[in-house]
């Protein structure tokens, strides 16, 4: 195995060996999906939105994946910043550390999405499995970008996780189906992904334009994450 594969596997192992992470990996999707059908619908009605039923459950699975991916993305950067920089200085280089970190993050994103998807499948059933899974994965990947970006600017665990939670809450409650607000809500990164996921939950297809938009947003988020990992690991000039 080459250096990137070994370090990527180690970075992944680092998260999967944390028992609490594993518990949350199962508990958060269960909580979001099971609770979301009724609670999200009530919230949406109060905020002027219209999401309900299976669409609300599907959206809950997406938000569960987003929340977990955002938190893990943040801690991937903030908890190992100095150690990653030491490894880069030892000869690995910031670019290879960043590739290993982003690879581990994507694998974590896929794992999180699989758990959220399976929870949704067991809870309400899924009419369009591929459409639904990809939409959930998009939520996770976008939030990996948000979490790592926050982690590259904020090093404190409390401040950083609160910032990720704030972005998540604003994004979730101002998104499509949840409210009728325009303004900044219209430019939140998961807006199109939420449209796609609501369509999947309702058993409908999504317009090609929406898929192109979410594809571009996801690539942008991953590019941001890679840049954040690189910035974090890069040695300073000597």
């Amino acid at each position, binding site marked *: 195995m*080459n*250096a990137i594969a*070994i*370090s990527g596997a*180690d970075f992944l*192992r*680092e*998260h999967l*060996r*944390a028992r609490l992470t594993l518990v949350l990996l199962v508990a958060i999707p269960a909580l979001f999906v099971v609770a979301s059908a009724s609670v999200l619908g009530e919230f949406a009605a109060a905020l002027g939105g219209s999401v309900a039923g299976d669409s609300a459950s599907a959206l809950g699975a997406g938000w569960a994946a987003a929340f977990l991916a955002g938190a893990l993305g943040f801690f991937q950067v903030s908890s*190992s910043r*100095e*150690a990653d*920089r*030491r*490894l880069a*200085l*030892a*000869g*690995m280089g910031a670019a290879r550390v960043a590739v290993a970190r982003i690879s581990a993050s994507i694998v974590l994103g896929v794992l999180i999405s699989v758990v959220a998807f399976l929870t949704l499948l067991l809870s309400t059933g899924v009419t369009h499995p591929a459409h639904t899974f990809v939409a959930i994965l998009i939520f996770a990947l976008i939030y990996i970008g948000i979490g790592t970006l926050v982690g590259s600017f904020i090093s404190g665990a409390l401040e950083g996780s609160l910032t990720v939670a704030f972005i998540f809450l604003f994004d979730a409650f101002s998104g499509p189906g949840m409210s009728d607000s325009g303004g900044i809500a219209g430019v939140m990164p998961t807006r199109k992904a939420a449209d796609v996921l609501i369509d999947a939950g309702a058993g409908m297809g999504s317009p090609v334009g929406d898929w192109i938009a979410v594809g571009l947003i996801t690539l942008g988020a991953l590019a941001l994450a890679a840049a954040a990992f690189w910035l974090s690991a890069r*040695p*300073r*000039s*000597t």
Partner: protein
Amino acid sequence: MAPNTGAGDNSTVRGAVLQASGVEKSFHRGVPPRRRRIEVLKGAGLEVRRGELVGLVGENGSGKSTLMKIVVGLLERDEGVVERSGKLGYCPQVPLLWEKLTVDEHFELFARAYELEAATASAAESLLGELQFERYRSYRIEELSGGTRQKLNLALALMHEPDLLLLDEPYSGFDWETYLRFWEMSERRRDEGMGILIVSHFLSERERLDRIYELRDGRCVEA
């Protein structure tokens, strides 16, 4: 004692593996109107040659670790020149490790970074034996005592036999026997030609060191 603000022209210093001169660094702390600038280094310079064991001492907050991080490349300097040659080994003051990975996994990771390949096993075996922590090789870092973490921290800096070894208070947490063994290891490597710079609080190790710089008022003074 005269302030040493520069290490001189590189061509005139034979066998130097590290030369730093005129290094300045300040930090900004607080928010307006209480924002203030703290000057830590005001033109510090030092030099380490092959086969030399050099100490860097100073009071708490004098800037020893800041200078070390600048020399290593972990921190940007405001002004000055730093020149290194050969392979670098760095042992930070606080062990920079991954809590959930094992000792063996750390050796493997750093072996790849140093591109040691086939020599990995023997390099790791030798250091595990030398520092006497073989039995912990399958332990995760979170399961290790402070002293054992520090042994691994040191071993990772040494495993590729660097030309320049930078040690930032490397023996904090060591028991007396390990402390003595650390000095034996350092002296042996110095005799084999390694250039070593050790940051310490104390001047008590004066007799073990070839030269000592004291960091005072942001400048290095050769003691």
